[in-house]
């Protein structure tokens, strides 16, 4: 573990100096984690890859501002939390940029989601299918569901981040859960 932490600190220092090798090492280390975040906030893989690239560009630009914790064992967790926050914000910003005129409270057209039928969705449903279900939600529902359920933001934080009211955030979360429940039901 100690060697890993030393390696991470070395990578961090290299990134702060703009060394390309260190940047690549950091990217390799956090690629999966970042991709898991970005893919939930956009509609398809292509957009997720684009959002992730934007996120890493921000990470490399702002890494000078990252202060590692005093406890070296917490460096990785702290860095992950920091990168995750940037990835979430980047995904949200990209989404908001392309969805300027959307009504956050508007009715959605529920898209029919077709997958192979499975007898037990909780046991046999692939994680990819579940992620695709999230992607099928409207942007308004998807963002609130991701932020609240998976990324652990409060409704107040979501309201500030998405520029909506707290009540809108709560109602969107309820509707998102309902839509997902319907999708799982239809899928089974």
């Amino acid at each position, binding site marked *: 573990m100690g060697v890993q932490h030393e390696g991470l600190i070395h990578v961090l220092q290299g990134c702060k100096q703009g060394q390309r090798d260190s940047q690549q090492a950091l990217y*390799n280390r956090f690629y999966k984690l970042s991709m898991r975040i970005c*893919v939930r906030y956009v509609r398809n893989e292509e957009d997720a890859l684009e959002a992730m690239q934007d996120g890493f*560009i921000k990470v490399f630009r702002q890494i000078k501002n990252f202060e590692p914790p005093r406890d070296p064992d917490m460096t990785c967790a702290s860095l992950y939390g920091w990168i995750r926050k940037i990835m979430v914000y980047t995904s949200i910003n990209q989404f908001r940029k392309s969805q300027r005129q959307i009504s956050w409270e508007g009715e959605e057209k529920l898209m029919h989601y077709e997958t192979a039928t499975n007898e037990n969705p909780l046991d046999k449903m692939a*994680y990819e299918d579940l992620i695709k279900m999230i992607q099928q939600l409207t942007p308004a529902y998807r963002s609130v569901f991701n932020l609240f359920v*998976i990324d652990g933001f409060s409704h107040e934080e979501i309201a500030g981040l998405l520029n909506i009211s707290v009540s809108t955030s709560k109602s969107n979360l309820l509707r998102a859960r309902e839509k997902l429940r319907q999708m799982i039901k239809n899928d089974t």
Partner: protein
Amino acid sequence: MSEEEIDALFQEAASSFQPPDKKKEIWGLLERRLNKNVWHQHRNIYRITAAVLMFLIVAGIILYFRPERNINGTKKNLTEGILKGQRNMENNQKSDNYNLLSKKRGTVNHWENIYARKGFKNQSSTLNKKPDTKELNNNHNHKVPIVQSMNSITFFSKKKPDYKQLQPISSPGTQYQHLFDNKSHQPVKESIGSLAFSKRTKNDKKKEPESERPYSLQIITGPDWCTVKLRQWRKPTWNIGLLVRYRFASRWTVETGIFNGDKDYNSHSKYFKFSDNTPDRDDINEVSAESHVLTVPLDIIYNLSQNEHHSLSISLGLSSYWFLTEEYTYHYKGSTGLTDKHFELENINKNILSIINISPAYEYYLNKRVSFIAEPYFQLPVSKIGYGSVSMQSAGLNIGAAYHF
């Protein structure tokens, strides 16, 4: 399923989901963007440094190869200057200066004294003719004033000195008397180099017309704003350029050179010409463009007014654009749910003499060689520009320094 069960299911999916392994492919794209960002972040520093270096190199080359420029004079230059001045004087046998010195014996006492102190035996023979500057220069005591006077003629102006300007202001011969002490007949140090005609030469130097230095080399930099149909103005980009000017008449100058800079603008989709292959082009709301462009102007300049230190002019001309890179982002209408599309082009478009330049310019002359320029400008297209064939207008302010030669 309860809410908690749904949340737990998707939380597990989010943490266990295996994303597609496109690590290497994405890193390639990311690295390219990072390299580009490094250039973008430091491009102004690079450009200004390049401009300064270019200016220093060019100015250094010009100064190195420019003959007889050193007023203080190295030994070599001094000798050349003396010989040149001497030849000029010998060729000008009818020069009033020397006629005046040689015709009246009473007015050339100082030459007589000089020759006497130097030990010339036959003084009378020297008094009836022009002093031999070779002999004078061999004498250390009298070398300096002669040298100074030669220098003032030969080094300030590369042309053959006009000896009419060297006519004495006061009575013949007396203009040189202040160079020597009446009692000791020694040269007065304070008067060295301040011969009567040198004072006039100094005044004349100020009035020297600029046309004597028809060429100038300029390093220009400044902000540039672009817009399409005056719809949106983005943050200015920073351009840098190298210009050469040639004055072919007293008030007329031609100018050309090259500018390196960016042209960033936003355009409404209705002003942007999309290719037939553009997907969902009817749903595009706006286009952002960032282009790296080489601009080559060809201008003619009319000098409105000019005095010793200031100059006001106006220029009109045409510019050509060479697009090195073009980046476009299509912003789709929000209601479509489509995300922005970004793409790049390299070395595709050029617009030859397609932009009209209009610019008034103010120039401050620090001295006869160096001047500073402030030049606001406007560029109006006469044809459609770039990949999107937009009607792009530009405005900005060029600030720079010029070296005249």
